[in-house]
């Protein structure tokens, strides 16, 4: 935690808050979330709780004015649910592709939306399934200069599985690098 704060402070100090990054960019996002599964089948309890983390990498991002769009590859790891009763939800790993849109509402606040699909592999058993994801959320700009932007993200994601609908409320960081603005 301390290291994270130190990193943000360092970036803020070293980065003159100049004009926002523009043009093509690369992005890395990391987030953590509780994962609440609402089953479409009869279960012992109405909602099962798991946790997880997500990392995405975007090589195809473009930002112009308040608009921002990118195509990103995503890994999501979800744990097995909290043990309760005679069943528990299985944990799994997901590999997906997202199309992300963002709109800068204010100087430091942006709204983002993501649509994506993924292939999921149960971690312990050799089974796989396809699913879709949609998210909407806010992004608070922590630091920026012409080369990069660092934002705090808080997306609300709905994971649409065939037998389960889930809600994720994540908190994360997003780093965007604008290579076209670098150099002399």
């Amino acid at each position, binding site marked *: 935690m301390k290291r994270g704060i130190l990193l943000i402070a360092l970036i803020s100090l070293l980065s003159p808050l100049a004009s926002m990054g523009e043009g093509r960019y690369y992005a890395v996002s990391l987030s953590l979330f509780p994962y609440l599964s609402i089953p479409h*089948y*009869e279960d012992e309890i109405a909602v099962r709780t798991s946790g997880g983390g997500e990392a995405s990498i975007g090589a195809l991002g473009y930002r112009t004015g308040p608009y921002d769009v990118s195509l990103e590859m995503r890994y999501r790891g979800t744990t097995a649910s909290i043990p309760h009763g005679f069943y528990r939800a299985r944990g799994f790993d997901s590999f997906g592709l997202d199309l992300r849109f963002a709109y800068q509402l204010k100087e430091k606040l942006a709204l983002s939306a993501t649509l994506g699909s993924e292939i999921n592999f149960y971690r312990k058993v050799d089974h796989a399934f396809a699913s879709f994801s949609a998210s909407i959320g806010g992004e608070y700009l922590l630091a920026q200069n012409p080369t990069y932007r660092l934002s705090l993200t*808080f997306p609300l994601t709905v994971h649409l599985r065939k037998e389960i609908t889930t809600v994720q409320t994540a908190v994360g960081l997003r780093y965007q690098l604008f290579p076209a603005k670098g150099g002399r």
Partner: protein
Amino acid sequence: MKRAILPLATLILLILLSGCELFIEKPEAGKVYAILVALDYTYSIQDTLTGTLPDARELNRAWEAVTAKAQGEKEYHGYLFLQEGGTTTTTKTVTIGNTAPVNTFPTKANLLKAFENLESIATPNDLIIFTYSGHGSPLGELLLAEEGEKTNDNVAASTFLEALSQVPGRKLMILDTCYSGLSIPESGASHSTLLNNNISKWYKKYWDSSRYTKPEVFVLTASTDTKSYEEEITNEHRHGLFTFALLDALGWKHPHDDYASIPLASLPIPPAAKESILSADSLYTYVKDYKSTNKWIKYFSSFSQGQHPMVSGGALDMVLFTF
């Protein structure tokens, strides 16, 4: 910004706290009933299997030991249905609860009668285990005995899945037989990656009309659509490769001179248990990892890479015991 953060933080907190697991009382585990079937086929034209009877007998003891260590009622009832040697009949019977005695010769009729009797005494919190050690066919059939006959009765595993699904409680079916993976009902929401599947099938499954329901019976098998094997462990003591690993997962001891003389209290909490929970997945994972380590090769010279265990798919894992 402050105005935006406050409602968001409240929403996150509310969703975090809504985890049902924290507020709903956990059900208490009930009794454990096991029906263990094994045939050595000495009487028939099938290849003789001398590891099957030790499979059933030692699993019976191992499950009893596990039940004694687990939380819950600690009451175990194991019923052995064995075909041994050249005989094609037996006078042995078992009494399941207060029901009429059932002959233990492993025929379709006797086993279905046993399930019927279980249906009348089991409760939703009980655990019902059915194990089968014997030959299987590429059609997903179990090769059972026929009373007074030297031929086999090929019975679809689905016959027993349906019968078991009528019994109240959690049900685990364990099949140590060739082609046993073909007996696992297809999940309504996921595909096995061990069988012939690909990404287009996974997406097709998402949109098709099949539905996932909580499995009435969890199935754990020795192989996929391939053969499964048995081998000698110590002098003339044989087991199915899968059951040998399963016994180890349950904390059973090998090598031993007399399986009946092992004090059950001396056995450990099953090493396959994770976070104090023994589940269908933890057994599966243990057996699968066992296959990939030299533990398996240590005992089995003719280890086959082709044999791979399988388990029921879908969103849920079934908890068998909590310690």
